[in-house]
């Protein structure tokens, strides 16, 4: 091609000959384009994190956890002390969590969740669509503790996880309220059922009470863990009929209407082979008692150490204030006679009471009635047989009729009630006949990783659509999930907001994602003489009667210095089989037999030594040998000069004001005994024993005499052949 020869270079750009319109169009388009491009530039450089970091994104790369954590881009002061008062995002991390969890190793999202790689406030905190793990707000963050410190039901409730009090509280509630009775969760097995066994409930309570209880348990017992099962009046009637058919000797009532009577004798067979005194002859026996005596006995025996009557006493065992409304008149008598016959798991210790004492207490208990609880006040259930009341004798007659196939109507109710009991999951907490434990509620494994769209929301629209809010609702108001199609079966346990939060925190911790093994640190049960002993003390509610460091009841002696006072071998023998140290007419209180295991006894003794700050096991003292004459001097002083026998008693001789001295050498340590003899008031300021100011030889002689008494002696009489 011929170039060059005719070449004339155009001075302007190629489109010189464009018409004016095209030029304008071109200019408009190109200007718009540049504007849009600048907009894109601006959008790129207008990043929120740039307020905190210039051009540089800070990040932690957690290879093992597969996380990229950029939270520190904005939260710069998180591991630097001294920023605690600065506003977010500069604030120092609260507590000393980071001391044990180095930021470089754990990052932030491991505990707090959220979207680690994100760099805007919303994205990073995960409150966005398409990110399933939003930041765990407030104490919910503690739920992550369970990732590396797994909890299970085998850990004792004394386990502590510093820094995760809410999570631990949730875990405790989870155990205490026996959620595992109906739900399943890995690491938790169905434990002993926490509610009282209902195997023979029909022998215990009356119908009026039962109906009212089923309607609203909290009305009778404020602190009960029993949830209101939300039953209709009809259902309550069926359930009551069924439960009342469960009498002693009748733990397997017939379920088929074709049951043939005649082979069943409810009055003969007992629970687990122990026939209770239910024969006709026993009836009315308790009425012989004296309720005033009974009242005194209840006070003196220390029943209020565990039970509560009219706002007085402790909450360890059932409140007895309204027991007169609750139980059949003869039940307290029969129960006290042999508690284990009614309920093999009954915790009540053996007070070794006489027949008379039992009768007195039983009569007194029956008189305990709450106001407004009288018959007739009870809302009658619509279903079931319309009866004004259900007195025990009549009940048994009716049941006998059922079992012999005479009352088919009642039998129908009973079967309906039984079905209800199964459906409502009563067996999760109560033992009833031999029904399988618990209702098969949805398993809780991985519930902390559930996505919002995997949850059933029913008709609920008034809460935020987050997992935590859903769980809160489920824990606090489970009944709200009932819709026209699905009946929510979970009962309302009446948790307050704080409890619910704790439980939800625990539940949020049940996640699917696994942490590498090297991050795991299993909690171990803390173990020390103190903790072991405390466990025994708590289990048997020792502080209901005894005092420890100014805490506890004042029915019996202060145990703070017991380690110093009593010999461990005696303590062991005493706890194994308690006996009355002080004679009966003066003091009715007595140490009941808790049937402690030997291990528990040893733990308790070690604990007492720990409290007295003395070494354990005790150093054993050398025996001192004395001449027989020395003892004679002491005997003389004891029996004649100082007349100790006026108050004390030795070998069945003497007064009954002070403790029996027959066994004193086995019981007390030498140091204690000597200190006591010298100055009783220095140990117990209000003791009635006078300070005798013995002379030295008198003191020696008395010691020699008393300490040779009993089985274990510090002082031995020299044998003279």
């Amino acid at each position, binding site marked *: *091609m011929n170039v060059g020869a005719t*070449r004339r*270079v155009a001075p302007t750009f190629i489109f010189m000959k464009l018409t004016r319109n095209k030029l304008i169009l071109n200019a408009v388009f190109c200007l718009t384009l540049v504007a849009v491009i600048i907009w894109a530039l601006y*959008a790129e450089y207008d990043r929120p994190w740039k307020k905190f970091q210039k051009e540089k994104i800070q990040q932690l790369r957690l290879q093992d956890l597969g996380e990229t954590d950029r939270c520190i881009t904005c939260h710069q002061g998180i591991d630097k002390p001294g920023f605690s008062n600065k506003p977010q995002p500069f604030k120092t991390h609260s507590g000393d969590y980071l001391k044990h969890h180095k930021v470089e190793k754990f990052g932030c999202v491991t505990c707090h969740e959220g979207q680690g790689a994100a760099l805007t406030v919303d994205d990073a905190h995960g409150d966005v669509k398409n990110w399933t793990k939003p930041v765990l707000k407030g104490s919910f963050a503690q739920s992550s503790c369970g990732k590396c410190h797994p909890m299970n039901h085998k850990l004792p409730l004394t386990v502590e996880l510093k820094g995760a009090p809410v999570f631990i509280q949730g875990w405790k509630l989870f155990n205490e309220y026996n959620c595992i009775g109906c739900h399943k969760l890995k690491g938790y097995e169905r434990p002993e059922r926490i509610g009282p066994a209902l195997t023979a409930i029909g022998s215990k309570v009356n119908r009026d009470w039962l109906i009212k209880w089923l309607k609203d348990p909290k009305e009778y017992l404020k602190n009960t863990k029993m949830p209101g099962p939300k039953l209709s009046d009809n259902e309550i009637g069926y359930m009551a009929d069924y439960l009342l058919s469960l009498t002693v000797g009748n733990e397997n009532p017939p379920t088929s209407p074709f049951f043939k009577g005649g082979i069943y004798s409810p009055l003969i067979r007992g629970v687990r082979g122990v026939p209770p005194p239910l024969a006709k002859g026993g009836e009315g026996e308790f009425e012989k008692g004296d309720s005033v005596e009974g009242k005194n006995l209840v006070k003196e025996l220390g029943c209020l150490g565990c039970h509560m009557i009219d706002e007085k006493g402790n909450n360890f065992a059932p409140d007895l204030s309204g027991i007169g409304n609750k139980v059949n008149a003869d039940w307290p008598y029969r129960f006290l006679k042999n508690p284990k016959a009614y309920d093999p798991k009954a915790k009540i210790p053996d007070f070794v009471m006489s027949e008379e004492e039992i009768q007195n207490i039983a009569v007194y208990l029956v008189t305990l009635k709450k106001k407004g609880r009288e018959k007739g006040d009870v809302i009658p259930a619509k279903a079931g047989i319309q009866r004004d009341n259900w007195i025990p004798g009549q009940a048994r007659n009716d049941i006998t009729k059922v079992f012999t196939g005479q009352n088919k109507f009642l039998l129908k109710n009973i079967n309906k009630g039984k079905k209800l009991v199964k459906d409502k999951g009563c067996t999760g907490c109560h033992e009833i006949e031999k029904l399988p434990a618990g209702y098969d509620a949805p398993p809780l494994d991985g519930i902390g990783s559930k996505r919002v769209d995997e949850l059933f929301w029913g008709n609920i629209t008034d809460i935020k659509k987050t997992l935590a809010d859903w769980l809160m609702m489920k824990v606090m108001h489970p009944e709200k999930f009932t819709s026209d199609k699905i009946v929510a079966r979970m009962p309302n346990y009446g948790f307050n907001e704080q409890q619910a939060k704790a439980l939800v925190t625990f539940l949020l911790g049940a996640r699917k994602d696994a942490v590498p093994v090297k991050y795991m640190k299993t909690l171990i049960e803390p173990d020390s003489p103190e903790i072991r002993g405390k466990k025994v003390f708590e289990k048997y509610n020792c502080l209901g009667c005894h005092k420890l460091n100014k805490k506890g009841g004042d029915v019996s002696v202060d145990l703070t210095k017991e380690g110093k006072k009593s010999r461990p071998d005696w303590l062991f023998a005493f706890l194994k089989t308690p006996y009355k140290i002080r004679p009966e007419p003066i003091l009715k209180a007595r140490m009941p037999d808790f049937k402690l295991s030997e291990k528990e006894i040893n733990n308790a003794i070690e604990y007492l030594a720990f409290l007295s700050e003395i070494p354990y096991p005790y150093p054993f003292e050398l025996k001192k040998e004395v001449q027989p004459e020395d003892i004679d001097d002491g005997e003389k002083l004891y029996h004649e000069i100082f007349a100790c026998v006026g108050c004390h008693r030795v070998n069945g001789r003497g007064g009954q004001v002070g403790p029996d001295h027959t066994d004193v050498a086995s019981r007390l340590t030498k140091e204690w005994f000597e200190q006591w003899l010298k100055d009783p008031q220095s140990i117990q300021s209000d003791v009635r024993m006078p300070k005798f100011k013995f002379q030295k030889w008198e003191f020696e002689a008395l010691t020699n005499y008393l300490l040779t008494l009993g089985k274990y002696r510090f002082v031995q009489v020299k044998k003279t052949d």
Partner: protein
Amino acid sequence: MKGKNLRNKITDSQIYKSVFRHTYTDTKENRTLQIKSNVFLHLHPVKIPSHAMKIRFTWCMGGITFFMFLVEVITGILLMFYYRPVPEYVYLDMKYLEFDVPFGIILRNLHRWAAHLMLVTIMLHMLRVFLTGSYKPPREFNWVIGVVLLVTTFLLSFTGYLLPWDQLAYWAITVGTNMIRAAPVIGHEGPFALLNKYNDVRFMILGGTEIGANALLRFYVLHIMALPAAAIIFMAVHFWRIRKDGGISRPL
């Protein structure tokens, strides 16, 4: 006139002349040369009939589709710098692209939206070609190539759909590839199935019985290499045919 001298010096130099073979005087001849001597512009003829200048005749859909393809190529190449087709990384790479890579999110958006637009325009292009009867002789074969390009575009888009490795991708591809499972004869669940789960055509496409690392890599290779190459080749033929078969649509 120093500037002019310099300019003349440049434009007269051998180097300049070797690159630009025509002058910039606005003459008919140069306008012709502009088209003819430029490899890109010479996709066009020198002259086109007036009716083809009207947007309501061509809708410009073919051109726009090609432009979209170019956008896809450019943005696609750039995206590849930050993309690792491995299941462990891939989703995070998408997140990084969004959060920290400079201009990452806008590039991804451009790539995605241009792909959608391209599918719309290619369908409209086909509709227009049919309505103007432009598949009639001698352009029959170019129509066939057009259909092939349509299918290629669908496949390009479809393979690209898996690459973000999110739920949308995963399940869309699952649904899509499960249809192949039911293909007659060559799918293991279809009528007259001859093959089993481990040797049917779906297995070949996914490199496994379900969508996993192999499928991701396969879709990636198809998306960035195999299908674009095919598209480019067929496009070349398509454009060339247009020129050879009488240029823009018109009665012949």
